[in-house]
């Protein structure tokens, strides 16, 4: 962002306009990337599902069905955007934007490669947690605005679920923050580099952070409403939950929001626990600046997408929890464990002066 603004400035634009143009350009790039990712993710999801379920999956549009997502996208764009007569029209219309925006804003704060975050900010992690929360009101509004009892139940479930799982989610994320001593995602990732290779990743920093990763990932699954936590839409129970009355592009917004969330949660997990763009040997071996950046971006995306793949795998394997079990899991299991881990990690930091297991053994 800063670089872009400077670029426009040097081209003769006033800084005032430069910021806007740069922001716009950046937004377009992020959106294009996100849409592309979503297309690929839906295709992969269907192929993975097909594989798990011993069937083929999409195989008609394009080679191996690879263009299926385009066909689906075009279909969703062209369909009638239907609004039920009894719905609260304003709320019904704006709800998808909340979800969409909530799942796309975080893209701007992801640490893509060394010292590069699209929009640099020193509270990146806090920002991501804050803006992903926008999804919740979107879903609640969708459930309320549809004026449909199933949607209402879905909205209620989702409000309860998302708020409950934000808590263990955020608490687990505090552990890497504690270790790195910063909320800046770029610095968190950089703190996971250096000698020791993957043992420097925060997941291997100490036993508490190791467990925190799984807490974070589980709570994250619930944050994106994926099986086994897909209660707000729960097809077999609530028909389609909050999105039951939506069609065409508004429905697609919810759909894309879900995939966006998956990406964000996975990206956060890989940045905060799995070393982000760090991979041993890249640093000493690759000397050309741009090549290094591309490799690091590739590494970051690979880690993230692998986690997304795990999410898909889980979705097609597990049954769904019940509402009370869901709440119990969050408040009686995940949250106490996360708090315990946080205290443990804090103690560890104090006792060993912030050194990880690797440092203790080697250094």
């Amino acid at each position, binding site marked *: 962002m800063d670089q872009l603004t400077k670029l426009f400035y040097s081209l003769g634009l006033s800084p005032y306009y430069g910021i806007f143009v740069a922001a716009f350009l950046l937004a377009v790039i992020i959106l294009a990337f996100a849409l592309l990712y979503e297309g690929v993710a839906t295709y992969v999801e269907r192929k993975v599902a097909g594989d798990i379920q011993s069937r083929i999956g999409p195989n008609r549009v394009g080679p191996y069905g690879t263009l299926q997502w385009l066909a689906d996208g075009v279909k969703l764009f062209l369909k009638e955007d239907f609004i039920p007569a009894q719905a609260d029209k304003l709320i019904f219309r704006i709800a998808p934007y909340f979800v969409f925006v909530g799942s796309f804003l975080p893209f701007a704060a992801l640490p893509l490669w060394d010292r590069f975050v699209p929009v640099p900010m020193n509270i990146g992690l806090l920002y991501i947690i804050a803006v992903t929360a926008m999804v919740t009101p979107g879903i609640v509004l969708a459930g309320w605005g549809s004026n449909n009892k199933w949607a209402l139940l879905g909205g209620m479930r989702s409000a309860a679920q998302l708020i409950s799982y934000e808590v263990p989610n955020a608490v687990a994320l505090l552990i890497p923050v504690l270790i790195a001593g910063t909320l800046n995602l770029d610095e968190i990732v950089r703190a996971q580099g250096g000698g020791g290779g993957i043992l420097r990743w925060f997941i291997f920093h100490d036993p508490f952070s190791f467990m925190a990763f799984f807490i974070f990932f589980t709570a994250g699954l619930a944050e994106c409403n994926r099986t086994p936590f897909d209660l707000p839409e729960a097809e077999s*129970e*609530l*028909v389609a939950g909050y999105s039951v009355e939506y069609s065409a592009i508004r429905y697609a917004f919810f759909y894309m929001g879900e995939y966006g969330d998956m990406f964000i949660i996975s990206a956060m997990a890989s940045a905060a626990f799995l070393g982000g763009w760090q991979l041993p040997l890249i640093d000493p071996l690759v000397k050309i600046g741009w090549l290094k950046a591309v490799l690091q971006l590739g590494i970051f995306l690979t880690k993230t997408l692998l986690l997304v793949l795990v999410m898909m795998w889980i979705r097609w394997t597990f*049954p769904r929890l019940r509402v009370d079990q869901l709440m119990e899991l969050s408040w009686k299991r995940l949250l106490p464990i996360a708090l315990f881990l946080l205290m443990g990690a804090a103690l560890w930091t104090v006792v060993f002066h912030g050194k990880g297991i690797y440092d203790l053994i080697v250094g």
Partner: protein
Amino acid sequence: MLETQELVINMGPQHPSTHGVLRLLLHTDGEIIVEAQPHVGYLHRGIEKIAEKVNYHQFMPYTDRIDYLASMNCNHAYACAVERLMGIEVPERAQFIRVIMSELNRIASHLVFFGSFGMDVGAFTPFLYGLRERERTLDLFEAACGQRLTYNYMKIGGVRWDLPPGWTDKCREFCDYFEPKIQEYHDLLTYNYIFMKRLGNIGVLTPEDALAYGVTGPNLRASGVAYDIRKEEPYDVYDRLEFDIPVGTGEAGAVGDCFDRYMVRIKEMQQSVRIIRQCLDMMPEGDVQARVPRVLKIPPKEIYFRAENPRGELGFYIVANGKPSPERLKIRGASFSNIHVMEKILPGLMVADAVAVIASLDVILPECDR
């Protein structure tokens, strides 16, 4: 002033997990069901009235449509009912074939149950696994009678055609293929922690309630009552076959909960395979049809015949009056009572449990509405 109100939810007839066109009126307090009222009849086709208009042979295709997931069993029950009424002796080979077909269809029906049950508690994958195996049974049916869903294979006095050459080998192959798959189901779904937690202690049906509400079949056995018409009042060659009656054991909670109903059906499939193997070994050569007149005129007589279907007791009450068609033909479908009992077990559960209970009772609406 704040005021709370019960939420009335209309579940069905268009709902993904009401198994057709069941409609439930749920009065809920939040997600907890206070009162549940099943409404049926959306699939009423007046089969009983039709029976009074067509002759005994012509009614056979309609029995296919009583329970389309277990057409063979319905064929079988009707054929046996009329044969007993007439006193027709069926050739032994035909009896064996009919038992094999009924048991194969029982497996097919329970596989659909397995799949849709998994789907209703949120696991989509088992559905396709269940249907994958069911496909094999449908292939066998197709080879025997040319149909894949409504077979119209059995007739009064036997079966319509003898088995095609090589069919028995294929059937044995299926048994060998199918038995290990049950372990796969256990690995994938049965002993999944979430699955067991979702179903244990949910929708408990005590044996007293089950009997009072006329619940039969696997649902009654899951409540711990070892009642199987194939054992108690055997028809065709069931009395010569060895098999066990699986009953609910309360593995994941109380006896008679959703998990037991699931488990009983899985075990029943194993027993069915056992029966099929025995039949294939014991089946003699010979005729497959008894000599039955084209138009049956049965003198005034009546019979109430019950058969063990995948969903429970299928009863045919036939009153004959000397004419080519019955005076009255009443069909007692197991699902009719199995739906009725929902009134009793749903209150106090959550909406998500309601879905699990409906699925675990394995009701089918054409059998209820007829």
